[in-house]
């Protein structure tokens, strides 16, 4: 049982687990922070951006972080825990010879598709005339200015995938539901469990009959829109792989939401616009819900909310139809029937408007002051670039960062000098360390495996000893490109017995509560499932021969010989020999057993603990006679 760690990023994990002859990839997150090294891609050529000193428009956008630790074509299945963790899927399924299946829940696939679609759309609509790749050469990279010089693994950065690749990757996904048991080649069973972090996000249990590995990634105990986390099923695991904890352990999501609302209100009252760079799904639903309650009380009901994304419409509508993946009170609304999310009402009352892009209808409806939700949170591509350029010059406007994935200072770098106000209130609902220790106490796994970053306090706050995982025995940590041998051995395998065979067994109780029985049967293996069948009747010599060709294991078709057991008491054996007319018997003790010498027949019988040999000179009759005598002392079955 081994774990190959392909990604060092704690919230965007990519691990490969070898478990009982199956190779399982757990998540494939795409680390997009490398885009911060690029210039923003504006929709309309911007004279300011293209004339920035020291920057030059480099090739599109390339990000994947993956190592050649393992041959990816040997991966049998990929388990996806949430839609943020599947963004690298096209790179893996399309260009590595991967032939397996991907398992994910339906909302994960649909929203993941939206995220990928948005990404591809943002990048493809502004094609580059040329791409530079020479700079990735080590020797040249060394000469580049600081952030690029220090970037690691530049050679693994790739161009963004295309829509065809996305479609073909997504077509390899098989949809699953929570608590559905999926058999992998008969050897392993995997089960997704609700993780409470996002629509359709899941933790996975990977188990064989006697071992259980839980994979916890991106879970949340807060009550937001998705179904609450299923903790009970994680109990009794041998190993618990823990990834995707909160990236901002010091920030309280509730407080951040309050800050978000008050800053928004302040700006709008002063006549400024608010820009919220965000993903098209996820936290935005909660933000809209908060605003729904807040704007009326703050007297801002006339301020329009705009949500601009190529997938805005689909995202808002998908959220309403995934009723069974929502938390309980949202689910119960569906039966009233009412839309589970209040943004339906915002849309109906024209307070929230969504547009596929910044051109077209939006430009006719546009009114200021307003609140704009748009992507991408890295501020490097998407419509947000245009708004940054448009509003950045005025100190009335505010940009509020809510996504914790990117450092907001770095994201803002190419827009400096900036008159606009910047507020950073990251909202990350994933588990924090207090919740983790509570969870671990409850679930009681034998071993915990987690990224290295979680075993020590964050470097910025090294005194905060509470910001690390604390459990007994201490958690095993992994790093990028490391192979971890998980500390338990498989010892048992389940074998089924055919009813006819089970009928014929006669158990004997050797200790109270423990019974034994001897079984002689044929072990039949098909699709990694083992089955004991009654031995074939010996009276079928003809059919046995025929079957030999088709069946896979040879011993199955030979006529069965009875197996022997027991030990031979030498004294009695000698007496029996004498009874049968052998005389002049000599017994020698050896280290392992005895040698019985029949001197007149010049024959030797070696009796050892695990073998018995009869050595005689070409006298088959004699040998058979002796053999029969020996067999009398042994039990057959």
């Amino acid at each position, binding site marked *: 049982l*081994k774990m*190959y760690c392909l990604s060092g990023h704690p919230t965007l994990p990519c691990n490969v687990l*070898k478990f009982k*002859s199956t190779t399982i990839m757990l998540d494939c997150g795409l680390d997009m922070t490398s885009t911060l090294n690029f210039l923003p891609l504006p*929709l*309309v*050529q911007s*004279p300011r951006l293209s004339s920035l000193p020291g920057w030059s428009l480099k090739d599109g956008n390339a990000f994947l972080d993956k*190592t*050649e*630790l*393992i*041959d990816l074509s*040997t991966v*049998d299945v990929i388990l996806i825990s949430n839609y943020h963790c599947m963004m690298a899927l096209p790179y893996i399924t399309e260009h590595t010879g991967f*032939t397996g299946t991907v398992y994910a829940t339906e909302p994960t696939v649909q929203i993941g598709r939206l995220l990928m679609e948005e990404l591809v759309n943002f990048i*493809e*609509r502004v*094609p*580059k*005339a040329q791409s530079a790749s020479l700079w990735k050469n080590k020797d040249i990279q060394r000469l580049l200015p600081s952030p690029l010089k220090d970037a690691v693994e530049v*050679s693994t950065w790739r161009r963004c995938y295309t829509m065809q690749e996305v479609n073909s990757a997504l*077509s390899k996904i098989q949809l699953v539901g929570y608590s559905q048991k999926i058999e992998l*080649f*008969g050897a392993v069973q995997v089960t997704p469990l609700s993780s409470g972090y996002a629509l359709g996000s899941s933790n996975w249990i990977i188990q064989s009959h006697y071992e259980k590995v839980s994979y916890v990634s991106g879970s949340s105990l807060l009550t937001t829109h998705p179904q609450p986390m299923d903790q009970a099923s994680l109990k009794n695991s041998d190993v618990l792989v823990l990834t995707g904890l909160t990236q901002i352990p010091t920030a309280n999501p509730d407080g951040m939401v309050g800050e978000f609302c008050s800053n928004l209100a302040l700006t709008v009252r002063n006549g400024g616009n608010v820009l919220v760079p965000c993903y098209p799904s996820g936290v935005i639903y909660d933000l809209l819900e908060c605003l729904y309650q807040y704007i009326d009380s703050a007297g801002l009901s006339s301020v329009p909310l705009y949500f601009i994304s190529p997938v805005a419409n689909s995202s808002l509508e998908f959220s309403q139809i995934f009723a069974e993946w929502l938390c309980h009170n949202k689910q119960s609304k569906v039966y009233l029937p009412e839309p589970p999310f209040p943004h339906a009402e915002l849309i109906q009352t024209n307070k929230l408007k969504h547009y596929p*892009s*910044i*051109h*077209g209808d*939006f*430009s*006719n409806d*546009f*009114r*200021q002051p307003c609140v704009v939700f748009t992507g991408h949170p890295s501020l490097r591509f998407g419509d947000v670039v*245009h708004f940054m350029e*448009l509003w950045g*010059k005025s100190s009335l406007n505010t940009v509020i960062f809510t996504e914790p994935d990117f450092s907001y200072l770095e994201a803002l770098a190419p827009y400096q000098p900036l008159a606009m106000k910047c507020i950073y209130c990251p909202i990350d609902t994933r588990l924090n360390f207090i919740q983790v220790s509570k969870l671990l106490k409850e679930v009681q796994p034998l071993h915990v495996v987690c990224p290295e970053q979680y075993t020590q306090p964050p470097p910025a706050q090294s005194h905060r000893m509470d910001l690390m995982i604390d459990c007994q025995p201490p958690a095993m940590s992994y790093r990028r*490109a*490391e*192979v971890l041998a998980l500390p338990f051995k498989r010892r048992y395998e389940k074998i089924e017995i055919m009813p006819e065979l089970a009928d014929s067994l006669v158990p004997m109780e050797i200790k109270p509560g423990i019974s034994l029985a001897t079984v002689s049967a044929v072990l039949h*293996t*098909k*699709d*990694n499932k083992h089955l004991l069948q009654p031995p074939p009747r010996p009276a079928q010599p003809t059919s046995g021969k025929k079957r030999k060709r*088709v*069946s*896979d294991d040879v011993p199955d078709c030979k006529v069965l010989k009875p197996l022997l057991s027991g030990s031979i008491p030498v004294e009695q054996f000698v007496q029996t020999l004498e009874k049968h007319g052998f005389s002049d018997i000599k017994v020698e003790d050896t280290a392992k057993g005895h040698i019985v010498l029949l001197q007149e027949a010049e024959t030797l019988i070696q009796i050892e603990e695990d073998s018995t040999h009869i050595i005689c000179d070409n006298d088959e009759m004699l040998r058979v006679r002796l053999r029969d005598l020996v067999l009398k002392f042994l039990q057959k079955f």
Partner: protein
Amino acid sequence: MRNSRKWFSFLYPLQQQQEEIATKKLRLTKPSKSAALHIDLCKATSPADALQYLLQFARKPVEAESVEGVVRILLEHYYKENDPSVRLKIASLLGLLSKTAGFSPDCIMDDAINILQNEKSHQVLAQLLDTLLAIGTKLPENQAIQMRLVDVACKHLTDTSHGVRNKCLQLLGNLGSLEKSVTKDAEGLAARDVQKIIGDYFSDQDPRVRTAAIKAMLQLHERGLKLHQTIYNQACKLLSDDYEQVRSAAVQLIWVVSQLYPESIVPIPSSNEEIRLVDDAFGKICHMVSDGSWVVRVQAAKLLGSMEQVSSHFLEQTLDKKLMSDLRRKRTAHERAKELYSSGEFSSGRKWGDDAPKEEVDTGAVNLIESGACGAFVHGLEDEMYEVRIAAVEALCMLAQSSPSFAEKCLDFLVDMFNDEIEEVRLQSIHTMRKISNNITLREDQLDTVLAVLEDSSRDIREALHELLCCTNVSTKEGIHLALVELLKNLTKYPTDRDSIWKCLKFLGSRHPTLVLPLVPELLSTHPFFDTAEPDMDDPAYIAVLVLIFNAAKTCPTMPALFSDHTFRHYAYLRDSLSHLVPALRLPGRKLVSSAVSPSIISQEDPSQQFLQQSLERVYSLQHLDPQGAQELLEFTIRDLQRLGELQSELAGVADFSATYLRCQLLLIKALQEKLWNVAAPLYLKQSDLASAAAKQIMEETYKMEFMYSGVENKQVVIIHHMRLQAKALQLIVTARTTRGLDPLFGMCEKFLQEVDFFQRYFIADLPHLQDSFVDKLLDLMPRLMTSKPAEVVKILQTMLRQSAFLHLPLPEQIHKASATIIEPAGESDNPLRFTSGLVVALDVDATLEHVQDPQNTVKVQEMFTGHCFMLDQRNRDVYSVDLPSRPRLRKVLYPDGQAQMIHPKPADFRNPGPGRHRLITQVYLSHTAWTEACQVEVRLLLAYNSSARIPKCPWMEGGEVSPQVETSIEGTIPFSKPVKVYIMPKPARR
């Protein structure tokens, strides 16, 4: 000539020497790769460390010559290493290294096999086998090695790990000997029966191994080994496997076998009948169209399309959904009677044959919908997954193309697919229908369904449907009427479809003259007694009707009698304005001028070709004329050629091309005729506008010649470059004459000589054709030029330019000028496009491109703000006044803020409707601050070129550092469409 040759031989060894020195130097400074690795691995204290070193090492490429050393070090470490994950990485590195180009891996094979034998970890074993596979595929010639590897694979086939068995099977599939049948008798046991070995693993316990076995078998087939027919039965068993990967691969294998042995006979299990193997396979694959997994269904549906040998009654069953009674062939009454008689048992006598032994129906064997071929396509076309539906439509298309009777039968199903919810499916079925349309005639109800698609919002679908209507047959006049009405509805709903609809009606008319005839009075709304109002000639709908009628009238002489007077007038107008849509008609009371033209087009081609040749010949003799005469001759010829190009569209490319070339020459001659040159001393005057402008223009024209024409060959490229060189010489001379000071001149001279050098190197093979030319003379004097001062160089160049011969431009076979027409925006509208300032407006651009090579990379859209207006700056609300467009020198300021943008369309925006034709449908984004009034934006298409793309790279240049090249890196754009003006009106944002 002799001189020049000496010059080459002098130049070349020098270069080679230099190059050798360079490479040697490189090798010396480069640290030895293997040594570094060795040090790293020795340093490694723990397996994890070693792994990191190996990972780092794997990132850099290894040169072929040092591979062996690296491999030795890796192996050495391998023996010492206990950690399997490190061994795994080493094994995979070995595989990677053996793939290095230029390295022969046979030397490491022994070691690889050796370590294989002692390896315990299954995973490493599998990786090692993979390495062996890489080695084996690298050495396809070496039979002995292949045999050995196959032996190794067979040995490990019994491994308990599925991964190892997989790799073994893969190895067998890729390396199993092909000449088995030949060597069988000779070697007997030595040659293993690879097929049998692989076949045994069809029943492996692990599904992954079963899949791998089938894949290996398919691999054998791909490599040209003939599979045995016995495999067919084995593969059929796998069709009912529990795992979809196995079934999917099995379907493929069955298909392969059915293509290999289509005519062999196989028994039907439930009776003693026998059928052809291809029919049996067809039935089995059809059955898989209703498999539980959609992947298998797609696979099966796709493969059905390529089974053309299948018998027609099986084929037709696929469209019949009736369930047969448990799908077995029923025996005939005679057979049953015979059986009864032979059974000879007593019967109660109440009923005839009631005691006859009945066929025992095994409940497991009866498939509820075991349908064979029945209804396969019905299922496929109704599948829930659109991928399956698309595959079924594709298969239907291929089968229908090969069988007309099937085409007719599948029509209904295909027409139904026009209503599919997924656009791709609709599009695919429309295309399919078009492909088989020569076999079919549409009924009215079918037409109804087809025409309903015209309301589709997708432009692609509508245009595909227009194409389909162009080539379908309609059975009744009501059908024609219906089609016309629907097309006109389409026209009003989507006016942008105009051209496509007109074209569609043209074909519809010419295909069904007799059906159109009875409709004419109604369509033209003529009345036997009364004159009706004359319809509006500019109405696209009316034009559409006329296009239909005129095209029908072409083969229906009685039709013109029904026309009213104004129809004839309109005919004359349309014949002129839309000549590609309206044919020449034989009209009463008209001279048959137009009809006389059409048959003679072919015969006319010759004289015009001749004319072209003759005028060009004449021009090349201008060497002997005085300058004045030469100029006149050139001017006349250019005029002639241009006119010829306008008249004869087939010759337009050639005529334009040669005219451009002549114009260059004309400009050159004119420039050299200037008075400027008569003055002995340099004047440093600014008056040589004409000469420098000429040089610049010649350059531009040569770029156009090089990049705007498709079909330009190397011969022409040389001449074009030569012309450009002359222009550069001219430029140099002019600069020398007009600028004071020597410093810039030095640089220019050097640059020019460098360019001559490049020219010579690139076109070394063509130099013999350039006798007496400028370059030829230049190269003769090259050694002298290299050493002389700029002033002297200029003097030499000047005399040479005057003396050089005018080069004959050989005409290429096929030459077409790239052209583009912007269909949309039409530029007619006066309504400005309004948008909020600061935001973005998207301008739809639709253009057709002709004869553009690689449009994805070359075609760009340019937008320019032209016209004048007042620009409102939002920040301080100042009003800037902008210059009026009267003074051309201030053009840059003309645009409200001097913007001219270039936009690269997405690759996906280009469609390729036909050879040499492309269509660009894209959106151009504009953004601006507020203006006082609507303003014009000019949109045009540009052809970007990069001169380095055309010139073949010299091999020696790639290795070394990139030398500063002036010639090769010139990039630029040529406008190649008429600009279209669009009004836009940014308005201030609302509060």
